């Protein structure tokens, strides 16, 4: 074989390929079309698309769980970095809060004594004896669409749609889709989330609705209701979807419209408990309707933003 006149070392083969127009082939237009078709089918909630998604998810959940084990130290590092990024703002906030808390300290000591007796009285209303399953969050949503998380427990662990999900700090969300080994938790911040709640000591009724932001809104409040920042927000149990009295958060500063600062850090939640609460698992729209009684709901509905 005749040697070329000039050799130009390793990598020359790539350079010596004749210049030609870059072509994507027929596959790219076909795949673009398939992607758009899938997007349209997802938009119209096609059953087949959902089934395929869950079959793949059932296969992938154990894989993701296994991958999480070796990357755990790295994950902790990233989490710490993320916390450091918000640290200076957090420090300023804490300094201001500390000043305010000193003023409240004396009052807290007095209230502590009263609280002990009140707690004993309120305990009678608390629901007891609910089984739960602990599961790990294996993936969570990114982007503008949903606020949800995938957990590594499903029908095999007797988890069903509608079950409430809690972290150590409070309610996190509800199960909305269940596969054999995995389930999807619709977080309280998701735009589709609707939870009937009681607010403050007077137990003002409202619906806590997510809007994909960090602080869900309180809707359907009665016209004459007055809320203060810091008022506790708890599940009301109306509609039977979630047990009564689960802690959710407190009323945030500002408003109306009022918003809720959640107790649970939905971004940092790692392990969650799924309550096997056999209430009436209603869809969000029905829950919203069922939680409000009669006249006040109709009055409030006309004022909803």
């Amino acid at each position: 074989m005749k040697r070329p006149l000039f050799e130009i070392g390793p990598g020359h083969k790539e350079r010596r390929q004749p210049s030609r127009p870059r072509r994507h082939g027929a596959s790219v237009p076909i795949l673009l079309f398939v992607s758009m078709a899938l997007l349209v089918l997802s938009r119209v909630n096609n059953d087949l698309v959902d089934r395929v998604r869950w079959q793949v998810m059932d296969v992938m959940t154990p894989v993701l769980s296994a991958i999480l084990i070796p990357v755990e130290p790295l994950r902790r590092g990233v989490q710490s970095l993320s916390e450091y990024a918000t640290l200076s703002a957090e420090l300023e906030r804490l300094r201001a809060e500390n000043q305010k808390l000193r003023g409240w300290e004396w009052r807290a000591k007095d209230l502590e004594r009263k609280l002990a007796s009140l707690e004993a009285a309120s305990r009678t209303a608390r629901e007891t004896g609910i089984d739960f399953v602990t599961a790990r969050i294996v993936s969570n949503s990114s982007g503008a669409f949903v606020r949800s998380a995938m957990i590594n427990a499903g029908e095999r662990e007797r988890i069903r749609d509608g079950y409430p999900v809690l972290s150590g700090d409070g309610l996190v969300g509800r199960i909305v889709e269940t596969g054999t080994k995995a389930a999807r938790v619709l977080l309280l911040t998701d735009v589709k989330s609707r939870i009937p709640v009681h607010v403050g000591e007077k137990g003002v009724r409202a619906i806590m609705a997510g809007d994909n932001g960090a602080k869900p809104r309180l809707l359907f409040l009665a016209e004459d209701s007055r809320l203060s920042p810091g008022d506790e927000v708890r599940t009301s149990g109306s509609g039977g979807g979630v047990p009564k009295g689960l802690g959710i958060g407190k009323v945030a500063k500002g408003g109306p419209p009022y918003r809720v600062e959640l107790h649970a850090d939905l971004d940092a939640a790692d392990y969650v408990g799924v309550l096997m609460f056999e209430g009436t698992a209603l869809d969000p729209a029905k829950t919203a309707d069922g939680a409000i009684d009669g006249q006040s709901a109709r009055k409030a509905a006309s004022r909803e933003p």
Partner: protein
Amino acid sequence: MNLPRKLLPGLSLAALTIIAVLPWGLAASYRFVLPLLPVIFIHEWAIRNPSPLPAWAVFASGLAVDILTAGPLGYWSLIYLVAYVLSVEVGTLSRSEPALRWVSFAIVLVLVVAVAWSIASLYFFEAAEMSGFLWAALWAMLAYPLLAAFVVAVDPLPQRRMNDRLERGV
């Protein structure tokens, strides 16, 4: 081209896709950058002529992100394919110079993010919040040198040397 070298582009993209869907404990506003990271690998592999990364691997990677993040199916596969096509077209202009490659990636990224925002807005029939997309693009730009260096380290781009002879049609 031997088999491991042939599989490298697809495997590296698959690995980065898995990394993109793991729960890293980041706040939701920072997390949006994660699905954009595979765009860096797609760009780096697509600017080679011929590209060793098949279009179906790009599609599969996007579909995996859609499934594992419970997003609408077809969204990220469409975005990744757009990034692939744009990278092939824009990236050819500047394959060897790192700075020019960064500029070409920036052009691709801006277009990709604009397409992503448009599709998200069309999907909901209302304008999506733009700040998340812009922050994600900024973080992806900053992550580019690190991830691009990895690709160049495992598969160096051919460099033109001082005394190389330029021939017509070669």
